[in-house]
């Protein structure tokens, strides 16, 4: 078990976006959050990554209580997220986009870059090597010097995945990674995601497309009104009439 939510609640003004939500994510699995619109899926993402603070409840990551850990420090602990609207840094090259995600001790500190230039060089060349490997893996190595803004939409989505991998995170949170992809790119994407779990990654995914999710996930968590109504194997959840009704008529 890599991630555990214990009775998380979050209120926005008059709306209970997440209420007493609990579920777990097992290491090396693909877990999908599904549910009708407004079920609180993205809010839960924001709570896990620390962009939002829960009103109550606790979140454990790798056995450590991270409920009050700052957003960027959670990345250091080994989780990273993507966004629904891609958000590639379009004015930077593909290489820069990915190297930016590498953990850095020396190169990104203006002081250390002055006093420890050797260390900086070492770190940068190590990172560049790593980035090359990642770009190779996702199939973008021939585009490395292009501006991210010049990539196609599907390529940008791969770039985002590369960026997540560069963070060295073990838990990847993907917010609708497949939306807007044409069937060809989609196949490639699904294969990549499957392959990632073989490389020791755990994936938590938000996706509306039930059939896609059934295909790639090991477990589904069904959310409704911010509550985890059910969790289980995709086909079990899919067969549940009650959930289906909720999904169709929230």
């Amino acid at each position, binding site marked *: 078990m890599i991630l555990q939510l214990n009775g998380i609640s979050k209120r926005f003004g008059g709306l209970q976006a997440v209420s007493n939500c609990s579920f777990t994510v097992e290491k090396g699995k693909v877990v999908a959050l599904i549910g*009708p*619109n407004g079920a609180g899926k993205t809010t839960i993402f924001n709570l896990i990554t620390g962009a939002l603070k829960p009103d109550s409840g606790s979140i454990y990551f790798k056995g450590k209580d991270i409920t009050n850990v700052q957003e960027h420090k959670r990345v250091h602990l080994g989780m990273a997220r993507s966004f629904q609207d891609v958000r590639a840094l379009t004015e930077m090259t593909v290489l820069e986009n990915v190297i930016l995600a590498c953990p850095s001790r020396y190169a990104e500190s203006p002081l250390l870059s002055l006093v420890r230039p050797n260390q900086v060089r070492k770190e940068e060349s190590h990172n560049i090597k790593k980035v090359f490997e990642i770009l190779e893996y996702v199939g973008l190595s021939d585009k490395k010097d292009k501006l991210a803004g010049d990539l196609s939409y599907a390529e940008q989505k791969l770039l985002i995945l590369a960026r997540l991998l560069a963070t060295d995170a073990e838990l990847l949170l993907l917010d609708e990674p497949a*939306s*807007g992809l*044409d069937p060809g790119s989609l196949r490639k994407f699904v294969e990549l995601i499957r392959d990632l779990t073989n490389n020791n990654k755990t994936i938590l995914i938000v996706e*509306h497309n039930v059939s896609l999710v059934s295909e790639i996930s090991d477990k589904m968590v069904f959310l409704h009104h911010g509550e985890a109504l059910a969790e289980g194997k995709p086909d079990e959840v899919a067969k549940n009439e009650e959930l289906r009704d909720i*999904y169709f*008529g929230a």
Partner: protein
Amino acid sequence: MLKLENVQVSIGKKRILEDVTMHVAKEEIVAFIGHNGAGKSTTLGAVLGTHRIQNGTIELNNKALTNLSTTDIVREGIGLVPQLNNVFRNLSVEENLELGSVVNQGENGAFTIEKVYEIFPILRERKKQLVGTMSGGQRQMVAIGIGLMSNPSYLLLDEPSVGIQPNLVDKVMETIVKVNKEFGISILIVEQNIKKVLEIADRVYVMSRGSIIKEFVPGTINSEELWQLM
């Protein structure tokens, strides 16, 4: 008849609508379902002229609407019921309704504020109240009122059940049917609440990834099949 043929829309790099062909016949209620980001709202935007169409045509009663200005499209008889959080929150009920008729003001058979009050008596009682201070259900009535005030022959509704209490959803659906039956206004409704919208629709389109993947008549499909489509 409102007809879309091979409509294609991109926003930035992202192709939102791949190829949308659909129609709404006179006095019909057509529902438009599919998961988030499938392109339903964009389709409404394309019809209204708020999204530029790269390819394809949109026709209303054999007259091309493609890339006309929004005002002209509304003048041709397309009305929009905005999402309830998208009404003019800093104005009163009456002012909202009044602004709804900027385009087709005083035309023959124009919808009047009185008529809206007849449909929603509560709005008459609250006509001076700021819309921003009203409940979701009441704001939804205002939103429908705004759509009607442009005197449309085709009314587009953008997720009318979002943001209102579950027990009021039936009421909203009833009103839509009433508008359709009593005033002969054709309806194109985008909705997340599939169960409810299937109860009122004559025909349903399922959209996925910017394309229409299925067209059916409610009752001819079971929930197992529907689940697979989503």
